[in-house]
């Protein structure tokens, strides 16, 4: 539980950070809150020779509203996100999710950008970003670009980030009118990753579901957007029968591994249960 030796850097600007990452292409790793990376380093599963700490870069911090969308700076901590009243009013699902991540100590250090960029299927924020159709703002030595969250995840710890790129911010579109969203997570204890979890958002028109998105945490090598499950609900009256069908469709795409949370069949079924519960909560919040 003791990491291998490394050199520590603390740049103050994004270009400096990118330069450092570029200078040690094989060896350098960005570090934000460190609460995924440092445990890996202690187990020596990660042995970066250079750590580039993003914590002193002012441009990566802060939460702001911009043209109807909400922009979260990459190094915004979960605790800062939880404390932001404006965000909680418009997108309460973010706060609801952040509160289910680990414990207060971890949330005080862990960042939204790190949670999203890490690529661990156990992280809770990716499914929410898929569900809300967030866009990641990315900077590299070649310049800046954007990547939709829905195009970002490729597999376990594999993302669309190129070597030397970092996430600078996450842009979340404002939710549609008469929408409700929820994140429901099954875990064994505080500080545990999900046995299964689901994010759901839906909006209602005339008592029927007009728009819907559903995403799953930790039941596949990466967070999954449950497209068929959501598509099946368009035009449906919210209720147990419709949600059960969506749950079944979500279970069909889940591909969990057996681990300490339980065998694969159980975890798949839990994905379904979480979808049902997330949809029920979202519908209630949407005023259905």
């Amino acid at each position, binding site marked *: *539980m*003791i990491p291998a030796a490394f050199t520590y850097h603390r740049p103050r600007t994004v270009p400096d950070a990118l330069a450092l990452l570029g200078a040690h292409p094989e060896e350098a790793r960005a570090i934000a809150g460190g609460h995924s990376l440092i445990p890996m380093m202690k187990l020596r599963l990660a042995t970066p020779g250079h750590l580039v700490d993003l914590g002193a870069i002012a441009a990566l911090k802060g939460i702001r509203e911009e043209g109807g969308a909400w922009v979260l700076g990459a190094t915004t901590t979960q605790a800062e996100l939880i404390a932001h009243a404006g965000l909680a009013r418009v997108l309460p699902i973010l706060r609801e999710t952040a509160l289910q991540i680990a*414990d207060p100590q971890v949330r005080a250090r862990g960042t939204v950008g790190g949670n999203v960029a890490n690529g661990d299927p156990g992280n809770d924020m990716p499914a929410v970003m898929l569900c809300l159709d967030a866009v990641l703002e990315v900077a590299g030595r070649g310049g800046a670009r954007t990547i939709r969250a829905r195009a970002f995840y490729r597999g376990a710890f594999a993302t669309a980030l190129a070597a030397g790129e970092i996430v600078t911010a996450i842009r979340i579109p404002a939710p549609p009118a008469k929408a409700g969203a929820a994140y429901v997570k099954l875990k*064994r*204890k505080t500080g545990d990753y999900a*046995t299964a979890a689901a994010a759901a958002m839906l909006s209602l028109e005339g008592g029927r579901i007009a728009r819907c998105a559903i995403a799953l945490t930790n039941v596949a090598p990466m967070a999954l957007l449950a497209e068929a499950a959501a598509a099946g609900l368009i035009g449906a009256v919210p209720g147990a029968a419709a949600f059960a069908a969506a749950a079944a469709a979500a279970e069909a795409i889940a591909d969990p591994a057996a681990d300490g949370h339980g065998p694969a069949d*159980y975890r798949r079924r839990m994905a379904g249960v979480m979808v049902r519960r997330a949809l029920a909560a979202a519908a209630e919040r949407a005023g259905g």
Partner: protein
Amino acid sequence: MNEIGDTRAAREEKLQGIGCRRKRIEDIRFTQGKGNYVDDLKLPGMLFGDFHRSPYAHARIRRIDTTKARALAGVVAVLTATDLKPLKLDWMPTLAGDVQAVLAGEKVLFQGQEIAFVVATDRYLAADAADLVEVEYEELPPLVDPFRSMAPDAPILREDIKDTTEGAHGKRRHPNHIFTWEVGDREATEQAFRAAEVSVKQLISYQRVHPSPLETCQAVASFDKIEGELTVWGTFQAPHVVRTVGAILSGIPEHKIHIIAPDIGGGFGNKVGVYPGYVCAIVASIVTGKPVKWVEDRIENLTATAFARDYHMTAEIAATRAGKVTGLRVHVLADHGAFDACADPSKWPAGFFNIVTGSYDFPVAHVTVDGVYTSKAPGGVAYRCSFRVTEAAYCIERAMDILAHKLRLDPAEIRMRNFIRREQFPYHSALGWEYDSGDYHTAMKKALEAVGYQALRTEQREKQEQFRRRETRELMGIGVSFFTEIVGAGPSKNCDILGIAMFDSAEIRVHPTGAIIARMGTKSQGQGHETTYAQIIASELGIPADNVMVEEGNTDTAPYGLGTYGSRSTPTAAAATAAACRKIRAKAQMIAAHLLEVHHDDVEFDIDGFRVKGMPERSKSMKEVAWAAYNAVPPGLEPGLEAVSYYDPPNMTYPFGAYLCVMDIDVDTGVAKVRRFYALDDCGTRINPMIIEGQVHGGLTEAFAIAMGQEIAYDEMGNLKGPSFMDFFLPTAVETPHWETDYTVTPSPHHPIGAKGVGESPNVGGVPAFSNAVNDAFAFLGATHIQMPHDPWRVWKAAEALGLQK
């Protein structure tokens, strides 16, 4: 300090003696981060040790190459079995009569086994160098399932003893067999089963778990070459035993070994035994001439440092149709891992498992225990229980429920019908114990009334109907548990550790001003000894507890004792404390009589001093007597006021209790939520009710963890699954249920103050209460026994097996 005007009650209150909810004085330093733990110790020139460990569960070692590790700058030494052999320290004796490899030389027998000990100038370098040790292995088939240990074709694990047919506890039938232990009357029990109107039989497994104290095991060893003296600071629950064993093993004279156990951050049985890390730190200090620190990390602690339980118990009860038990038979298959390193009194290879008749009046019983080797870490320690008492209590409490279920009797009712009655104490159990005192019916009735048991059963029946009508997916379980413990090991007639009788001791010295220092042979790991022993002294001697300093853990200053585990401190050292106080009081009475110019038979002790019988206004406070002890003793009496007591208990003590648990189970997820938990404990005289409640809260939380999720599990290759707190279930305050505590008081008739010990009761009684609640929730659907741990997926699977997850 018998101040004018003070009422008797005010004088009593000033003492903060027995029965007072005195705040824990050790918490003043603990809550400010000022505790003094092993890892806080920094000595000049101190080196750090770290292990290279085996990735395999069973493999032959072909070659160990330490060249690269030695070449790293800052590495001072790398020890392997080859270096320990000339010192005869490559193997060490275990408390259970077996031997354990300190460093593996020829074979590794479990994943995480110690192979090389790297010593470097800082702990980071030591970790780097440990990684550089190269070992060439030939993999051998692991033996993971204990039920396969004695199969004819099972791989032979312990080649060192494969031809030894006589083990430490009798005949061995197979190279992987350790012992068979048999108690009770086989014939009479068979007869009871032949004549039985009904009987039940069930395999009840208690999974492998781990005590996981927050502070892991650690030591700093410092050998002084000039004086030939060895000092070891370490996480030792039994420092004197460590010193004696150290002297025998190393040849260093016992008076030149100084064992110091500073503050300990939880022990739970994990810190009773001797581990390779301690031995290697000592050898490394002798070799390098420098102090050497070894601190294991969490993964090492969970992987290689003693586990607990792993008992597979087949229980059978014979009974009448009316639900009166007529016989008990239990066979246990005990998985001991690669070495038998159980920490039991030496003559008890299965601890006090023969307490398995529990609180019930079984006319006959018969128990056999087979200990076997597997490719797993050694251990089998008493995790917050007196030697295998938790296993026994779980076994009988599950089995009684299974019998009740078969007879369609209420679990509380079947217990009431079979309890040992108050007038039967002292009670001789069919398996050989003499229960000192008890009043089970009263305790059980009080518990049932406190929770409104009948109303709960009515509610449960309504919920079951709703469930059947598909109106709810929630089930309600009510867990009943009534336990009897056996603690306070123990009387020299049947308890010793490596030949040393299991007495305990107190040395008490009253200073001229009436302040007191008291030293004990026990060692607190969080139990609050500094607070509670002082309260006993306060009541016995009439000196306020605040004027008493209690010291433990330094073998140079503390009287010889056997340490703290098995709830033994109150039954043994607290008894010694009272006995030493009474010697002091007898002398103090002579001095008081002298000061009062009367015969000593004419004075009597009264709260905080002595008074002339019938003339209460003529008195001397204990404080005045203490002063006089140093300048005005009666002729013929030596000055000074102190005493030592080595207390050999005449019997064990038998705490008991009634626990009730109400659970709501979400069948869709398998999540079981504890709605209510009521714990009634009878631990005899209550020294400090607040500390008792704290012990009960802590023990119940551990019991909850064990029943609802803890497991040290291996895959089929013998790889340990999830050895960190990410997976190993340690509940936080968020998951921990609310605990309701209650009590009755049935003093121990043979203990000087009537106290029985309480630290482990909640773990012993708690586990069956949770497990019975889960089982009770599904019993109406036909389930007889669901194995622990009851984590959500297993509960869900149990429901699936009953057809509830369509």
